[in-house]
């Protein structure tokens, strides 16, 4: 089991994190931005679980942390989607580029 060193997990999760970041920065559509956020959150989950399992197995803090993150992600996604839908009503688009009336 321990044939895979912890650092490989961390590299995978960091890579996933920055894939999400890339998506978050380049996607124009708000829903796809939201998807990128989900990817990032998942990468953090991997971190927590891997740390828990490989370094600190005596308690389940990391595991619980990721459980709670999943719950929060659900709430966040729900509110974000509600906001996006409302934005769609007022702007008739959900392109983030089209929602920049306020600036400077």
């Amino acid at each position, binding site marked *: 089991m321990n044939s895979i060193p912890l650092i490989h997990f961390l590299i995978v999760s960091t890579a996933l994190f920055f894939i999400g970041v890339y998506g978050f*920065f380049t996607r124009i559509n708000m829903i796809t931005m939201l998807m990128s956020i989900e990817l990032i959150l998942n990468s953090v989950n991997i971190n927590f679980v891997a740390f828990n399992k490989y370094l600190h197995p005596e308690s389940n803090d990391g595991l619980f942390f990721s459980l709670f993150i999943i719950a929060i992600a659900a709430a966040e996604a729900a509110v974000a989607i509600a906001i996006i839908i409302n934005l769609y009503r007022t702007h008739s688009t959900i392109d983030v580029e089209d929602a920049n009336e306020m600036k400077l």
Partner: protein
Amino acid sequence: MSPLILILLLPFLSFVISGLWGRKYLKNLAGILSTTTVLASFVISVTTAYRYFFVDGKVAGKFVAQYPVDFKWLEFTPDLSIHLGILIDPISVMMLLVVTFISLMVHIYSLGYMKGEERYATYYSFLSLFTFSMLGLVVATNIFQTYIFWELVGVSSFLLIGFYYSKPSAVAASKKAFIVTRFADLGFLAGILILSYYSGSLEFKDIIARYTDSSSPHLQAAISSSFLGVSALSWGLVLVFIGGAGKSAMFPLHVWLPDAMEGPTPVSALIHAATMVVAGVYLVARLFPVYAISCPAALHVVAVVGVFSSAFAALIACTQTDIKRVLAYSTMSQIGFMMFALGVSGYGGEAGLGYMASMFHLFTHAIFKALLFLCAGTVIHFVHSNEIKDMGGLKKSLPITHIAFLLACLAISGIPPFSGFFSKEEILTAAYHHDKLIFWVAVVTAGLTSFYMFRLFFSIFYRGEENTHAQSHHGEGTSSMLAPQIILAFGSVLAGLIPFGKFVTSDGVGLEAHTDWNFSLLPIALSSTGILFAIYFFMKDNDKAEVLASKFGSVYISLKRKLYIDEIYEFVTKRIIFNLIAQPAAWFDKNIVDGFINTIGKATQVFSLTTSVWQSGKVQAYSAWLLAGTLVVLIMCLYYLQLL
């Protein structure tokens, strides 16, 4: 609780009452109310002064500080707390007298001057606020209290200068005054922080005690730690002086003072002649032992800045045509005198002559300069203009003002036996014994002073015909306007006879003032020459002089030509003094010093525009900045901890 606290409380109450209910319910009563409270404060000040100087002030032949009111206001740390209190010592008593007296005069004068003004009650509430803050500043027992009231003085003068807020120039002026002095206050604040950081106390008595005792660890620490090669103590003192220079309009922080003349004239008399502008001098005097004993270098800065400002302002005053601006520059020049008098002084005994002279001059100057402003107010009231060209020949219409103005001019020029002579004399003596260069600059400046003052005097009251169409119907003003002028005129004549050195000295021990007439000859001669010049140029209208010349015909002309008196005069005064020195100085003042401050404002706006790209309105760009910022911060941290 000592009754002294009433000195402060009464004006404050008057401020609150006329501020809150004045406009609706009190109307004209507000003026009476404020005046009464100030009168009460003045009476208490006088009794305090009497008791302090003649009854219980001296301990073993020496005036010592008393603390009739002192309560702990809040605690920073167990050994550093802020007190609010009242400090009674020679200079604070003297200032109490000056402030309450001048304020009383201005209050009475304003009863007539501001009559019919729509915001009459507001005006009086602001005046009371100013008086309150100035008194609080004067009696402060610690440097923090000084700072609070210092700022309050700034605020109330901002309100008063901007009183005619429908005039854009008044608004701009008040804003400028506020911002420039705040800029200087920054120096003061930094100075306070440095001084209190090393002394571990905010109390004046502790600061002075700890910084003047050469064996104290506080002094050692403050001297040994340095920044840019200058010790922390010097930095602190110089920064405090910068704060003082801002309020006292020393070069180059004086730019606000001439503009501040946009306020009502009585306000100028109160703020820009007698009280607020000397706050800087007072502050240096307050900390004087520290300057004199532990840090002569900082004191030298005070002297140089003082004498330079004095000469600089006197030169510019010769070129101004706005009567109040002339007075403003002359104030700056006289405060320069006080400043360098402190700068050339030593601590204690005969060496402390400069200190005593400076305070003396502060005292006499307050009286005659307030008088000058009040007279100017009457003149402006009469002709409805600030410009010299709109005046002239007013001697007949304004006889009392004419006399009062003349007395004040003689006083400021240092002609014996008027008050200014005695104080200026002491200053010059002190300067002579300390630094010859300063002395000579000062003597010449004194001559210039009488020149520009009498130029003003003759231009107002003699030259030309009275401009009848601008003449107003109310004559010289009400008795409430005349009475203060008369009282102050008496003061200007007599104040010099007070044996000041017996009461106010650097170490509390009396000092015998001695007037050495031989020494005095030179300054008196120079001042008189200045007056003669002024008479020659400005007493008669220049055009009239030419008409006269044509009448006398060739005899006169050839006589004049032959002697070349006119040409020499022309050459010396107009070409050299005026064109070569005074004009460039005025230009420098207007364009470089003033322009610098405007440039800062413009540069900020340009910078602001160029950075606007940042706030693009795009949430992704925002997040990208967030990430980039995070990474930068992270690298910075790791690099700093040498973990990279």
